């Protein structure tokens, strides 16, 4: 069966190639955005790589429409970046293809149908679904380990098509240099904090524990108190620390799905009926402004004693 994998970041190529190896063998790759800038890296995962030097959803949509119609691809796979959700949803509408998002696992049945397990109900649940081929499947980010790279395949250049949407300006976001995915301990902050200055409590606690600071969506995206690489949850990062300390976080499904693989979760919240207490291993019902300084003090004492 002919599979086309769309790589947006360079790392996607190895991850998608690994998945395809398990259910199909091989795939051709379309490299776009940053993956197109480093197409030689991407080419080590496939015999045939199309390069589209663009991240415009319209250009990606049109390139794919062409490839599907001419190349006979039965399955398109990618990871769920916002520009790819945009491009592939348009393709799905235009070619009348089923599209499944937030996939964890995939299987092909009789070369005719695809069976996928995916997140459902803001990841409170998993759903097993079946759709006929041809189809589109988007995986959750970093859903698997990458494949070992091999020989560089052939690269075919594609020209981007201009669409009705014109880009007037691009503003990069300020990013920190945290890598929450690698952190063993994460202190998570939520709207229980009343001011940006107060976040020093969380940073002090994290530093003492040798951890990092993460946050809920409103802290990063809305209030902009922290950079977006610290945003944890269904539309942010998925993390798996040994210890997650959630401070002033209510426990919405969209946030908690990002920490479901944490080994131990601690919740500090002043409302004893906050939903987070049902999703935590240890809960402290207290005002963070009173409790966190005491916790820091006690940890310092303990550290001094060795």
């Amino acid at each position, binding site marked *: 069966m002919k599979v086309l994998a769309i790589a947006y970041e360079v790392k996607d190529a190895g991850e998608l190639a690994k998945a395809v190896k398990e259910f199909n063998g091989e795939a051709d790759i379309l490299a776009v955005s940053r993956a197109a800038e480093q197409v030689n890296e991407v080419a080590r995962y496939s015999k045939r790589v199309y390069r589209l030097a663009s991240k415009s959803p319209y250009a990606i949509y049109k390139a794919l429409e062409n490839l599907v119609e001419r190349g006979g691809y039965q399955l398109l796979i990618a990871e769920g970046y916002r520009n790819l959700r945009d491009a592939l949803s*348009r393709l799905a*509408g*235009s070619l009348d293809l089923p599209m499944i998002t937030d996939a964890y696992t995939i299987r092909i049945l009789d070369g005719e149908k695809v069976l996928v397990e995916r997140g459902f109900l803001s990841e409170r*649940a998993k759903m097993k679904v079946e759709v006929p081929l041809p189809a589109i499947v988007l995986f959750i980010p970093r859903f698997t380990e990458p494949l070992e790279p091999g020989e560089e395949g052939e690269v075919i250049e594609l020209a981007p098509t201009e669409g009705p949407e014109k880009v007037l300006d691009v503003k990069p976001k300020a990013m920190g240099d945290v890598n929450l995915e690698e952190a063993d301990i994460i202190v998570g902050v939520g709207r229980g904090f009343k001011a940006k200055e107060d976040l020093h409590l969380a940073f002090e606690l994290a530093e003492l524990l040798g951890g990092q600071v993460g946050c809920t969506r409103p802290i990063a995206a809305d209030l902009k108190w922290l950079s977006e690489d610290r945003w944890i949850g269904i539309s942010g990062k998925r993390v798996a620390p040994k210890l997650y300390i959630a401070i002033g976080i209510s426990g919405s499904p969209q946030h908690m799905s990002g920490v479901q693989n944490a080994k131990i979760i601690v919740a500090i919240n002043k409302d004893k009926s906050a939903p987070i207490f*049902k999703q935590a*291993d240890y809960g402290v019902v207290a005002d963070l402004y009173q409790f966190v300084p005491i916790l820091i003090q006690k*940890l310092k004492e303990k550290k001094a004693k060795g």
Partner: protein
Amino acid sequence: MSVIAVLVKASLNPDMVRAEPDGSIDVSAIPLKISDIDRNAIEEAVRLKQRLGWKLVTVSVVTWGPVSARMKDVRLAVQESLAKGSDEAIVVADDALTPGDQTLTAKAIKAALERSGIKPQLILAGEATIDEVTSQVPGRLAALLGYSYVSFARKLEVEDGKVIAERDLEDYVEVVEAPLPAVVSVTQEINEPRPPTLLQIRRASRKPIKTFGLRELGDIGKPSRKLLEIKAIQARRKQVIIEGETLEEIAEKLIEALAKEGVLQL
């Protein structure tokens, strides 16, 4: 008169999921509520309607059946949109379309608009629903209608036959311009939705809701997705509340518990 359409889904409420001990979930027992980000889409639509003097129409497709058991929740979601300033609503409800999928939803929205003789200049949607979280219905609809599409807008202006929006992407923000007619999906950060006033809620009950079944829409196909199984992701957490006379005592007990778990290295 120019029309804005806003897409509103009555979604399964993820906060109300009850799982059996074996993890299975009875979807028909989960109540529906308006999908959170559709509230942002409504707020933005009302703001534009007031500024531009256009008409505002709410469109909703019933995805989770059976229709008879779900109509109360669906009506509540739609009435919220009417109360906030939508002029009328179109609801697609047919047991043959449930459980729906995104392929069918987009086709049903298109067909319902056409049957109503409405050609919106602008269609606003949420970036994603709270049950399915796919971010695909608006893009599908844009392709089906041949409209331009601006996704993940966190800022939106409409002027001179075009939209100007800020698209919020993972690591950058892009200012784009697109001609009308257009579909725009908005993010949670675009505005702060205001709850309707009591007077608005009372007035809403007099606004028209048109309901379409499959018979009125014609053949729009069937859902292509087969649901085989739905299982809860069980949060197996200890749920221990640490208590004590003083906060100092609680802090000490917490540190001790974490040390015992082997997750503290001081």
